[in-house]
């Protein structure tokens, strides 16, 4: 009853099982508990095929070559990732080759979240705190809170960009600066010159402070002033970049990310790395995905198109939004996010959670497929329409199913 590779692959049919896996937000990190269970998702009427645009995922998944690579690993499901072919070290080598660095410049993570978590553990302390944006991705402050380490949350500027000046000022004596570029949830980006200057000034005033530049949404950026900070990290002590396969690469469910920086900066992260943190499927998938830049370029173009369509529809409906450089939009809907979210969920569209301090006015909407966003924007329009007694019934009728 050995399941030989050949036999298994002969029997495979790629039309996928109809069992749709209801996916869920990361961001539902707090678990399977509270927010989502009691939240918008449960408002989706039974039988309605929900549009899930809440977690900044790639709605199309990883693509066929990557799925084939995973199927090819079935005969090795029983092997530890260091015994599989390719092994996890081959993934580190493949990433290193992509950036023309050595494997010692790379640390693999179970998603970039493991690296963010371990960065807080490694670089902050009760006397050397964390500096982060507000709002920004909450993983780092969440971990710092658990540890009881100080946190400086610096509100974004009037253009919803990370406030460089105030973050620099707060960084003096800090253990770690979390710099999310593009920034989740505001979707804004800083150009490469600003980032280089930001790092330089932090290091002048506070050379022991570590700067983590999270480029999770790197592949979605279209602003020409932006460039990756990877070269900067490789030439600057105490600076590193995190990347993930969870966004443009369409592998959020596979949990693969990495950090890249100077070898001495990587060492504390290497120490804290969970041994064999990436499955044999994740290893094989990521290696194949790395080799298919065309697929990523196509995903960026697809996202750019759908993002523009969605933004346009929301602006026409009277909303304001910062220029998005991610696969999501941060939109002023002029009402509490919860009201908007719940109303959308009742019509089958699930959007992002609250992002204080803007939860009374702004929502985060991830960019799905064009088909999904055509339906979703119709729902947004119906929800945004001023509700009077006479139009109420029409809204119900217009509900998308």
């Amino acid at each position, binding site marked *: 009853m050995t399941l030989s590779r050949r036999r298994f692959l002969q029997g495979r049919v*790629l039309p996928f099982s109809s069992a749709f896996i209801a996916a869920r937000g990361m961001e539902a990190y707090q678990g399977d508990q509270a927010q989502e269970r009691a939240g918008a998702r449960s408002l989706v009427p039974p039988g309605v095929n929900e549009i899930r645009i809440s977690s900044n*995922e790639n709605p*199309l*998944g990883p693509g066929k070559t*990557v799925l084939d690579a995973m199927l090819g690993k079935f005969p090795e*499901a029983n092997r530890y990732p260091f*015994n599989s072919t390719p092994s996890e070290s081959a993934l580190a080598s493949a990433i290193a080759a992509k950036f023309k660095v050595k494997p010692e410049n790379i640390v693999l993570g179970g998603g970039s979240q493991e690296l963010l978590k371990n960065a807080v553990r490694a670089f902050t302390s009760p006397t050397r705190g964390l500096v982060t944006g507000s709002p920004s991705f909450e993983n780092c402050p969440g971990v710092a809170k*658990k540890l009881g380490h100080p946190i400086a949350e610096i509100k974004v500027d009037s253009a919803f960009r990370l406030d460089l000046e105030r973050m620099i000022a707060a960084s003096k004596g800090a253990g770690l600066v979390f710099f999310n570029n593009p920034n989740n949830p505001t979707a804004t980006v800083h150009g490469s010159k600003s980032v280089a200057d930001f790092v330089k000034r932090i290091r002048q005033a506070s050379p022991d402070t570590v700067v983590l530049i999270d480029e999770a949404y790197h592949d979605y950026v279209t602003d020409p002033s932006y460039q990756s900070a990877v070269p900067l990290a490789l030439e600057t002590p105490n600076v590193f970049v995190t990347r993930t396969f969870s966004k443009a690469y369409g592998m959020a469910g596979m949990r693969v990310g990495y950090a890249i920086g100077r070898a001495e900066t990587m060492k504390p992260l290497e120490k804290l790395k969970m041994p*064999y943190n990436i499955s044999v499927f994740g290893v094989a998938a990521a290696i194949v995905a790395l080799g298919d830049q065309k697929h990523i370029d196509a995903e960026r173009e697809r996202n750019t198109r759908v993002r523009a369509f969605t933004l346009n529809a929301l602006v026409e409906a009277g909303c304001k939004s910062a220029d998005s450089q991610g696969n999501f939009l941060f939109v002023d809907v002029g009402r509490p996010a919860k009201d908007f979210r719940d109303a959308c969920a009742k019509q089958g569209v699930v959007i992002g959670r609250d992002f204080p301090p803007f939860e009374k006015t702004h929502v985060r909407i991830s960019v799905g497929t064009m088909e999904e966003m055509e339906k979703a924007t119709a729902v947004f329009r119906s929800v945004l329409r001023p509700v009077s007694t006479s139009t109420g019934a029409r809204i119900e009728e217009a509900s998308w199913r």
Partner: protein
Amino acid sequence: MALTRRGFVQTVGTGAAGALTSSWIGARGRENALWAAVEPTLVAVESGAIVLASNENPIGPGARVLEAVKAAFGEGGRAPGRYSNKVRDLIDAIAKKQGVKPENIVLGCGSTQILRSATHLFTATDKPLVGTIPTYEECAGYAEMMGHPVRPVALGADFKIDLDKLAEASKGAGLVFFCNPNNPTATYVGARAARDYFARVTRESPDTTILVDEAYFDYVTDPDHETHIPVAVDNPRVIIARTFSKAYGMAGLRMGYAIGHKDTIKKMADWDGGSGTGSLNVLAMHAGTTAIQQDPSFTANERARNQAVRDFTMKWFADRGMKPTESQANFMFVNIGRPAKEFRDACRKKGILVARDFPPFEKTHCRLSFGTMEEMKKAVAVFGEVLAKKASAA
């Protein structure tokens, strides 16, 4: 402060525990990965090699589980692109199978995450980790990294855990790592004796937590065998670690879990619980949920298959005057009368991969995992050739 293998060994072992500790950790904290960069020969497995190095189930998880993995790709293969919300389904399935409540379970990225969390939470600079020498090194490696002391306890006769000695050493400990069957020696402590030991530690050292690693639980054939899950659910100072990496054949998927008292589990989950947006991949969640709901005949068959291979292999060595320890697992520990490295390198040249060094027995003993019967028949032919050559002067 480079964490090369050599550097790591040099940084430990200067404390009270002395040389034993350093050689123990020096064996390499984990099954492999950490040292990949400095020891490339340990990683890439040649295709066609027979891998008897990592205590894996050579058969794999079975068609039913692989079908579940395939189904987990979802419509159009899009599901791997989504964060997974299947954590609760897996926890519920485990709870049902083990007869506990969901609040008694925390998931991990393999049991590795469980071992690390427990070590993090229950050891400190003044609360040592206690473990036998040798045993699986994850907890000791993590404690050393944190700068927490490690108190090693030599094994008793026949390479079995000496429970009296362990109980004495457990006094004042933060955490005892109790691996049963013990990796790498494959020896086993019966259920009654183990329960007595837990009770004694709780009585004599009430603040000491015991982490019972039941990774090889499904391979035990000794009649005095039962899980200690019921003890753990009642006693906040006892935690059970389980994994899908061994009998369930899912080492490549990375899924394990802990069962314990709800307060202890909450502590572990708060520190570093596995979730669908953290360390746990969606395929593993589907695979685990399916695997644990299989008919118990799945593990019974795997146990019987392993037992036949175990009997065959152990007899082969015994017939040649090399008596293995009494194995209750899917691997054995045997005195081959020469350095493990010499044996390992010679076997590797002939396409057989056996395990790393296990100090302090690396000059004489080797750990061999059991493959399929077919693989072991080929492997013993190679062992025969390699062992027929005179050992170099050790």
